[in-house]
């Protein structure tokens, strides 16, 4: 089948898509956006998190066909050229990135959190990121990064 959707503001068409293919597969293997990661492909790790019409979803759980005509924003679409999004910047600065395999999903999820909640509490951060597994950091630096990004965002607005 053919699937047409918008990714990071660009219209993309994927041909010969199999029925079983997920949005994650189409992003990674058909439209050249492998930033979203494939750590479990079962909705358990959050490494594949993307925005679908503005709501964070696990791209591995979305059938490619479900994305037809919709708007997808991936980790590749957060930075403004060379200017990182404040969440991305804070992740690098705070040491929240080790192997980085969890990072794309966490960055999207954290981005959504601080869009919705100004200055989230630690409990709110933990709740919002509870679906994103990280095996390397023990999450301390990830908390630091989200706190920093939220504070900078609040200071800028």
């Amino acid at each position, binding site marked *: 089948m053919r699937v047409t959707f918008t990714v990071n503001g660009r219209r993309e068409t994927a041909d010969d898509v199999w029925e079983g293919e997920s949005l994650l597969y189409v992003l990674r293997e058909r439209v050249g956006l492998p930033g979203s990661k494939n750590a479990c492909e079962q909705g358990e790790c959050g490494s594949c998190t993307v925005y679908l019409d503005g709501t964070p979803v696990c791209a591995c759980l979305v059938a490619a066909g479900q994305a037809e005509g919709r708007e997808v924003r991936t980790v590749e679409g957060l930075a403004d050229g060379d200017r990182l999004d404040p969440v991305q910047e804070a992740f*690098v600065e705070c040491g929240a990135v080790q192997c980085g*395999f969890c990072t794309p999903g966490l960055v999207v999820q954290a981005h959504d959190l601080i869009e919705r909640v100004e200055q989230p509490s630690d409990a709110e951060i933990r709740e919002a990121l509870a679906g994103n597994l990280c095996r*390397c950091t023990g999450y301390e630096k990830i908390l630091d990064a989200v706190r920093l990004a939220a504070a900078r965002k609040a200071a800028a607005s």
Partner: protein
Amino acid sequence: MSATPVRAPRDIAAPGTGGVGDSPLRPDGTLKVKGEFAYSSDLWIDGMLWGATLRSPHPRARIVSIDVAEALAHPGVAAVLTHEDVPGRKHFGLDHTWDQPVLAFDEVRHQGEPIALVAADHPETARRAMEKIRIEYEVLEPLTDARRAAFDPAYPQVQPRGNLARHQPVRVGDVEAAKARAEVVVSGEYRVGIQDQAFLGPESGLAVPAEDGGVDLYVATQWMHNDLKQIAPCLGLPEEKIRMTLSGVGGAFGGREDLSMQIHAAMLALRTGRPVKIVYNRYESFFGHVHRHPAEMRYEYGATRDGKILYADVEILLDGGAYTSATMNVVGNAASLGVGPYVIPNVRIDAYGVYTNNPPCGAMRGFGAVQACFAYESMMDKLAEACGLDPVTVRQVNAASQGSELATGQVIWAPLPMAEMLQQARELPMPPPLDPADIRNLPGGASQTTHGEGVRRGVGYGVGLKNICFSEGFDDYSTARVRLEVVGGEAVALVHTAAAEVGQGLVTLEAQIARTELGVERVVIHPADNQVGDAGSSSASRQSYMTGGAVMTACRAVRERVFALAAARLGRPLDTLGELSLTGGKVVSESAGVLASIEDVLGDSVVEETREYHHEPTTGMDPVTGRGDSHTQLALCVHRAVVDVDVELGLVKVVELAAVQDVGKVLNRLSLEGQIHGGTAQGLGLAVMEEIVVADGKVRNPSFTDYLIPTILDMPPMRLEILENADPRAPYGLRGAGEPPTLSSTPAIVAAIRDATGLALTRVPVRPEHITGSS
């Protein structure tokens, strides 16, 4: 050579200006947060095929026949390969060339053992074709009893060479005589379940056939040169024809020490003449790598009434599963570190590693020391109770320190302020008491299983001693090539090693060292590949020490040549210039000040040096007594855990984990803290969550739905106290740091749960039913 894949690794400029001791940003950090960092699963090249691996559903079976005809006829399939197609040697292994078949032929020895390979135009085509491979098995009763494998000569053999991979004794003094003198005797039997590394980036890679008949391999591994040594004979190729490049590694923790898809992808690429990519999914990953050895441990300690240990009588049984992998060295660690950092005059330790048809086990962070640490720390708490001492005091009474002898007779010659570290851990402020106002703070959290009734707080301590770098006489070294030249008017250092960046931040450190040694700001990190000498493995917490040491040494060799160039340029003999250094982009003489800029001295010259760095040699362990200076460095971490336990439901909330660790020298605080946090988290996982559940040799929970690793809700705030008592033999005085916290956090948490519940808790992970008594 052949075509280069899209997103193949490339040179990365290291940002910032920080040298050793600073915390500059990771060179790969920006790529990683933008989703542009190329992991081994992200590679892509025109005309690429997808490989898939057919695995045994049985833990033990004889293979009667394999029929691939129907699979081969499936549209879109380019190749189907079996053991008959292995071009060279049919076996490979970390320690033994005879260890493990590339593809099973006579018999399968564990569930998930690879039997056949498919290459097709789409991963789904490959999967469907795989279903058409017909294999006739004669299913056999799996051999899953590690104790019988070790001690019952009548037990059938898993491996044709017998069921015992290694028995390592340690003997000190006279245990029997000491038994007669003991005033207090405590004993316990402890078990550790199988833990999985659960790195997030599944096994994957790309093999590209080359014009010279060789193959280019882009893989995520911990030790490229050791991979190569195993791959080349199986492919029947000389090593020069296999070019390996490290692609992005999504975590490792020991799980990439063994080969996974490397030989398989290369076989498919060589057969089809097309690039082949293999990416495991999570289910397959649980079968695609070895795990942490499960252990059964029997300990008996005798002591004086005031808690001084007189003897230790210890048996450690480690189930290595079907193949050897790293079992030999895991047994060595368990034996040499079997009683940990305690001075005990009479010791009898017997550590065994055996073959069974259970899942294969090998390297995982902590490597044999983790299992023993859970047992010996549990014993210390038991002894404290028997002597009426508190857990910190009993540890201090028996603590090793600089100058003490380990059970192996090895003298601890570097600082080891264990008693002081325990004191420091004890004196850290306690977290505030339970606040039932916010239900999210309680065990069970937002599931609202309690409002605070039935919740008890407990505090526990754990101490872990880990060997850093390779032990037991292995010639452990790393290699670095450093080039200094002027690019665009500015001196730039290029650092090239084969060392695997697996997330730990080695690339950041390499740049810091180059800046400190060469006095330049701009450093570029070349992708790790096998076009430079061996770097050894990213394991045993050894890369800061070994590859750090190699980069330091290569930089110093470059520096000497820059000094010679400076002397030539100034037209003066080198020995008249005084003590020289490279600082702030200048050649500086201690006596005469700035002599010239590095750029002016270099001009058009390119200065390149390659150096190996070896640590102090170690010796083997005596096969009968275990005696020997088998470790080069030892590192200590002390944990204090505070937990809240809902004793009615068996739910545990870890409230705080505090660590006191001596790292010798802080090279990069940000990375270091990340290592201690991450190591601590994996110890928490082993304490209360993580276990590969096996029944009759079969894995029952190969998914992240059923194998649980800590989430951000499971991890408490972590307080760190980092000490810097330099190890004078190590580069910059550093101590490897990634593993010790993985040892100590597990027993500390379990001790805290015991403190809260009064239960014995002799097995990890502790499950709710162990607390409620419902199992």
